[in-house]
């Protein structure tokens, strides 16, 4: 077969299904395992405790996801480069500490405190990026040092009291705890989202026709957008029977969408995937590899700081334990469980959302069953191990199908 623009558009649903099957058997599982896993987890917990899927609990679940999920978005970015950031927990704790001290002891305006905290995160990322690109020290070690160093900084900022309660009427606390979208606005946002998805698909289809490229059926795109709309509307309607859709959760989802668009539709995103796939190839193609590394480390630490602010708002406090405990590992586990490869170059921003949903579902479900955290840790560890095994197996399967 000679290369040429195929004249028959391979657009039928049957071809789409065949494509999907070929991808799956070829080891390109995408987000399928995590979606299946999430459904299984929800089914099991619902069977064990009927209040798991209650609107009240699901609203809690969405709010629990937002903070660590935001941190996980940054982890997805560094994993795409084949790097790691172990210090996101400490950075989020530092951001919480800066917010707490700024608001209560220094009398800063909320905007100033948030800005300082986020800039501190960005500065830490810039330092990592500079160290990595200048000295070539593995990011594992740089950020391990960062984990300790930033933790020290957090303690220093907090001072002797060690724990600061945020004012209960501060907008960031309200944002994280008690602001919910009115149902009409949530429905409207769902409609806008589905509309934009459909419109962009339709525009892309028109550009492809103009360029003489084969196109899929428009009905298929309409079906997808319609499915998205139906899903959103059902979720909003169900959550609205309780408090509704939390503003903080919407903020998290918007962040995921923004990062996803940046990764898939911009030159920067293309460069991130290229560097993750082959640094040498990217460098020889004229990509300024150092800039890509630095931009990603900065984004990761910045997102970690934002996540820390959300967590502080939700707990309405900043303390020695902010960002401690399992924050770090939950964020990293979320990115991996969501389907972002540890080996670089494969993954998507959505894996942060899916992965954190799995982790928080397990945590939330086990808490409902009043099992203590010893079991929670072990089960979360098992799920993480499972996700990494799936990652390795699909990688091997891709190799076997000549697609590694």
């Amino acid at each position: 077969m000679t290369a040429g623009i195929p004249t028959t558009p391979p657009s039928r649903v049957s071809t789409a299904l065949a494509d999907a099957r070929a991808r799956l058997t070829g080891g390109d599982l995408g987000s399928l395992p995590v979606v299946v896993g999430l459904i299984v987890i929800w089914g099991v917990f619902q069977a064990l405790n009927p209040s798991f899927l209650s609107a009240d609990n699901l609203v809690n679940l969405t709010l629990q996801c937002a903070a660590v999920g935001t941190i996980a978005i940054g982890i997805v970015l560094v994993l795409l480069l084949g790097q790691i950031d172990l210090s996101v927990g400490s950075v989020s704790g530092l951001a919480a500490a800066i917010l707490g001290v700024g608001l209560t002891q220094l009398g800063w305006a909320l905007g100033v405190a948030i800005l300082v905290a986020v800039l501190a995160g960005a500065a830490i990322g810039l330092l990592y990026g500079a160290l990595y690109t200048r000295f070539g020290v593995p990011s594992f070690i740089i950020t391990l040092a960062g984990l300790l160093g930033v933790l020290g900084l957090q303690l220093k900022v907090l001072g002797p009291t060690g724990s600061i309660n945020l004012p209960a009427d501060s907008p960031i606390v309200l944002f994280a705890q008690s602001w919910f979208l009115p149902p009409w606005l949530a429905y409207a946002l769902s409609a806008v989202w589905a509309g934009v998805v459909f419109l962009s698909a339709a525009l892309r289809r028109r550009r492809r026709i103009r360029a003489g490229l084969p196109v899929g059926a428009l009905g298929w795109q309409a079906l997808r957008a319609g499915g998205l709309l139906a899903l959103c509307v059902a979720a909003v309607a169900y959550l609205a029977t309780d408090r509704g859709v939390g503003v903080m959760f919407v903020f998290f989802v918007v962040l995921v969408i923004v990062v996803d668009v940046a990764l898939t539709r911009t030159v920067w995103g293309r460069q991130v995937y290229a560097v993750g796939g082959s640094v040498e190839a990217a460098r020889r193609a004229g990509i300024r590899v150092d800039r890509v590394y630095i931009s990603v480390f900065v984004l990761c630490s910045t997102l970690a700081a934002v996540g820390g602010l959300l967590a502080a708002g939700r707990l309405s406090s900043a303390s020695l334990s902010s960002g401690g405990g399992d924050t770090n590992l939950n964020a990293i586990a979320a990115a991996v469980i969501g389907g972002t490869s540890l080996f670089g170059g494969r993954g998507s921003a959505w894996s942060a959302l899916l992965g954190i949903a799995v982790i928080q579902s397990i945590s939330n479900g086990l808490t409902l069953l009043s099992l203590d955290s010893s079991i929670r840790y072990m089960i979360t560890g098992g799920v993480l191990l499972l996700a990494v095994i799936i990652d390795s197996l699909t990688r091997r399967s891709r190799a076997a199908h000549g697609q590694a």
Partner: protein
Amino acid sequence: MSTATPPPLPRMDRMPALAMRGISKSFGKVQALTDIHLEVYPGEVVAIVGDNGAGKSTLVKILAGVHPADAGEIEFDGQPVQIPDPTASRSLGIATVFQDLALCDNLDVVANLFLGREIAAPALEEEEMERRAWELLRQLSARMPSVRVPIAALSGGQRQTVAIARSLIGDPRIVILDEPTAALGVAQTAEVLNLIERLRERGHGVVLISHNMADVQAVADRIVVLRLGRNNGDFLAPDVGYEDIIAAITGATEHARPMPDAPLPGPHPIRPTR
């Protein structure tokens, strides 16, 4: 990208696109190249052959801007030029396809073709890039199942095709191919040789580094032999037999430029075993 009509066979009265004169290069005490001469005309395939250590790779690296030459002149379209770094080489219009291809396995064909030269305003214009990718591949009569599969899913020949096609995105005058058929099977080699003929038809000057005499004789217009870092023969491909080339490579005969010093012992012609 316009398809040039096939130019007539290179003639010495036309101006070479690229000329190297008296190029020398040493690494410490190792003299890699001594007084090398090389000319490449537009629409001509020049094969550079030689044994291991003959200096083929060093010559390529000088042209690609990886190493600067110690002495000698390089002329591009009759103008003397310097090639201090890879960017200078690329902006002169020299495209080099190294043996390891330097493709990103996880990206699809379109993304690899336009890597570092994406069309974006400011969102990526995937449709325009895909259209141009098909156009380019069609001009090269290249076989490709789809331009939306990751490189990892392609055969060795198809990867080589993508790497060569990518070098053409900037519309270079000279394309340098370093051992393009080294790791390929028979059918894939034929595919790549076809591709080299398409490059000649488009009017690119092609420098082909190869170990494989059959490939060289199949596509080359001119064969330049290097031996121990010196020119040791410059043949028009139709006029020369397999044995002559082998003799020049091994030093059994001292061709166009006899070596002034340190002649090697053993002037017995070595019969190639076939």
